[in-house]
């Protein structure tokens, strides 16, 4: 029995040159190709519905290793495509059609919206800015043996209060820092701060933001970030990018 296949769409962009991406492997192993519709080009690959069909996806999406591999491959293809054009709108993971024609039909339906999105991200990239609260040196509580249970509890309470207050202040500083960076970007989005378990850092994340920055002004943006580094010594600022404009390639209406 010949297994059924589908068309997996990674992104839609303008002025994409198929040759540059030739040989690039897509999710599930088949080669990435391009299909054109009007002046838009969709970056796609053929997927086996044994792995990417409805029933299979329901199963596979519950397997973190599968999700990770697929997400990384999806991201890789999007990055490679973004590298060869100025305007690219990534699609959400596992957007799959029955055929190339079906994908084109959907792109036609969304044509006006996609053009708007592409105009918005054209010659711009996404930069991730994460802010961590630097660990403060807290006077060691263990030096002096607790004289009594009550004294110990009181000291613990004071410590917790101090820590909460410090965390609140750092959160306010991180919010301020975000607003300091806003003028350097064409658009911004705040993502939920990530848990320490994921960042692998002891310091809590106070800000997880994305900035859509003009490619020709990225140096200015870095300068702005460096200035804030000096202004907020208690915060550790991590800049990461450029990302394809994932956070900004969103449709205004569903």
């Amino acid at each position, binding site marked *: 029995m010949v297994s059924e296949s589908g068309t997996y769409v990674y992104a839609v962009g303008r002025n994409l*040159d198929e040759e540059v991406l030739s040989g690039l492997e897509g999710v599930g192993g088949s080669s990435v190709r391009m299909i054109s519709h009007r002046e838009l080009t969709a970056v796609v690959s053929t997927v086996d519905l044994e792995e990417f069909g409805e029933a299979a996806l*329901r199963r596979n999406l519950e*397997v973190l290793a599968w999700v990770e591999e697929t997400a990384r491959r999806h991201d890789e293809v999007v990055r490679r495509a973004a590298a060869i*054009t100025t305007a690219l709108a990534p699609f959400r993971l596992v957007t799959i059609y029955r055929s190339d024609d079906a994908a084109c039909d959907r792109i036609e339906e969304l044509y006006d919206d996609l053009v708007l999105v592409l105009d918005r991200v054209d010659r711009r990239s996404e930069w991730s800015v994460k802010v961590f609260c630097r660990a403060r040196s807290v006077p060691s509580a263990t030096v002096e043996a607790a004289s009594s249970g009550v004294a110990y509890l009181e000291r613990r309470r004071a410590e917790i209060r101090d820590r909460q207050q410090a965390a609140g202040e750092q959160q306010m500083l991180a919010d301020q820092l975000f607003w300091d960076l806003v003028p350097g970007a064409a658009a911004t989005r705040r993502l939920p701060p*990530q848990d320490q378990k*994921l960042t692998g850092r002891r310091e809590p994340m106070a800000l997880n933001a994305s900035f859509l920055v003009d490619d020709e002004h990225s140096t200015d943006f870095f300068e702005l970030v460096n200035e804030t580094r000096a202004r907020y010594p208690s915060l550790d600022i991590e800049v990461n990018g450029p990302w394809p404009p994932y956070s900004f390639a969103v449709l205004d209406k569903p």
Partner: protein
Amino acid sequence: MSEPTISSRRGAFDRYGSTSPASRPDGLADILERVLDKGIIIAGDIRVNLLDIELLTIKIRLLIVSVDKAMEMGIDWWRHDPMLSTDAQALADENRKLRERVEELERDGE
């Protein structure tokens, strides 16, 4: 920090490609919060049960957002969900080994 080059066909891979490892974030959380939550979200022909996807994103989000918060809310089933981390599996294995060891010791003690 290097300035990103404006993309052109030549040397294009410098912008997002593999030639500059520093600009390639490896964090799975960074990727997942973008590829699952952002980008163009439209229905494909292959309908994935949205509830499943929601569940998936909720599960991952619990990890991305805040484990502390989840625990405050009394949600901790994810700790035992092997899908969420290899840690959970490792923990399960470790627990099993420890239980076996305890049984062994108890037997020896008798």
